[in-house]
């Protein structure tokens, strides 16, 4: 299968037997339509957003309590063997696609966005993207544009912050009735 003609294609990466197609976020919908209609990727399995804040540094994900709190995982034991490859932007959003047919194929469509950078919605291409995109917005704060109903889905409507971001502390929630408020 050739992925050459995909609109906005930046790079094709192969790793662990999986194909990743990096596309320009501005042309995401065109690329998605091409993949669905020309190449038969009619099934969207999942949308996974990842925050790469602090990628390659130490300790960002290792804190318990607040960001200045106790470090249970000593830096000397949790460091990396080598620094990982740097990432182009803060967030990646991966669309795991499947061509549901007799000779099935999977591909990962990936875009990179910075904080507050808009990302077009693919609900018009795959209706199942509805909740996945709401989750990406709710937990990661990805700014999806053109979504018909972009509200929080897993957290409360009045929740502040996006819990799966790396700068959102574990245990950062104020404890009620602790005598400190």
């Amino acid at each position: 299968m050739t992925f050459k003609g995909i609109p906005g294609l930046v790079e094709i990466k192969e790793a662990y037997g999986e194909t990743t197609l990096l596309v320009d976020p501005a042309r995401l919908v065109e690329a998605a339509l091409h993949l669905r209609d020309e190449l038969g990727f009619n099934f969207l399995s999942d949308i996974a957003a990842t925050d790469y804040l602090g990628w390659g540094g130490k300790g960002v994900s290792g804190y318990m309590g607040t960001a200045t709190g106790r470090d249970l995982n000593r830096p000397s034991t949790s460091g990396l063997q080598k620094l990982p490859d740097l990432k182009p932007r803060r967030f990646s959003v991966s669309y795991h696609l499947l061509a549901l047919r007799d000779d099935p194929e999977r591909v990962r469509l990936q875009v990179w966005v910075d904080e507050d950078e808009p990302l077009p919605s693919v609900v018009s291409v795959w209706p199942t993207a509805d909740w996945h995109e709401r989750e990406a917005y709710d937990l990661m704060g990805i700014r999806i544009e053109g979504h018909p109903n972009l509200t929080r889905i897993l957290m409360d409507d009045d929740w502040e912050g996006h819990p799966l971001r790396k700068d959102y502390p574990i245990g950062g929630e104020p404890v009620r009735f602790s005598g400190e408020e």
Partner: protein
Amino acid sequence: MAIAPERPRIYGGTRIPAPIPTVLQVPRHLRDSDDILTVNFGPNHPSTHGVLRLAVDLDGERVVGLHAVIGYLHTGFEKSMEQKSWWKAITYPARIDYVSFQYNELVFVLAIEKLLEIEVPPRATWMRMLLCELNRIHSHLVWLGTAALELGAISMFWYCFRERERILDLFELVGGTRMHTRYFQAGGLAEEIPPGFFDECATFVELMPKAIDDYEGVVDRSPIWLERTQGVGLLSRDDAIALGQSGPVLRASGVQWDVRRAEPYLAYDRVDFRIPVYSGGDVYDRYRVRMDEMRESVRIIDQALRRMPGGPWIAGDRKVVLPPREELHTSMESLIHHFKIVTEGYRVPEGEVYVAVESARGEMGCYVVSDGGPRAWRVKFRAPSFVALEATATCVSNSLVADMIAILGSLDTVMGDCDR
């Protein structure tokens, strides 16, 4: 003799609501009507299988508007897993979908193994497959018991939970706990398969097909059951694919798709089994698919029992796998390895992978990103229940409020899986 009304043919075109695919909006001519009654089903309602809230607009008995509200069981598993070393994080996924826990454990372990590029011994592979199929039966039994209960077949619940109990006993035998066994780990199994397990399991294989006959005897010729399930909750083939449905829901809509067959993992390419597909797209066909799947699972378990390979049950790579307990007293090196893995954890090479398995509920996917350190950078689960609930609005459109319960049950959602 016709004991049920003729089933309506599956619809053409699409019934996915627009513009929001997951929200059924009240038709314009009814919007300002005084006859519309908005009712909250849940979050604490026995038929929601957990804490799901459905805000339903009713015109008499007819459902004319619906939107599902989820998140009541959101516990941040994915965030928590980023804080734990790889081997400790294995305990988390099982608790996400607490009814088909082995699959979640499996999919995460397979993702780690894919990044580690570690070879798993055949005995572990076959045992994983056996336990997963036992779990599929367990999950379908919980579904059948509760879904039938909601439609009034109370006795079914006791029959299903009788056999479920036997499966949990088998899990307890093998992993020490009834649920959330954490029996899989990167490289193989946590322990050697205990003596007596195969005999117990063979007894189960002998009794289970008979039990399935009994279940079918209870409901399959009951006019009430057929009336409540046939032609209800229709979902066409195209809509099912567009809504990302998987597992029994997809196969009941006439799509021949099963990850076990299409992209074989474990030893599924070496066992003989059938993929049940029905084309009615209604509640009844989803029930049929699950009943047939239980029979097929019994067949797979039977084959796994007969062909269970010997040899090691875990890989030999001491940088990843804990050394055998008895070596700790005699070998300094084993002690060091043990200490390093327990305190620091093993490192997993940098990269990102997506692994999918066919869980009892459909495609259970796991996307894992590693930065090369001892902890996962990001873990994201593709939860089949989350996706199945997206189809509620389409399936429920224009049905009666009583049917809504049947439809919701037939999608077989587990809210822990949905909310993570």
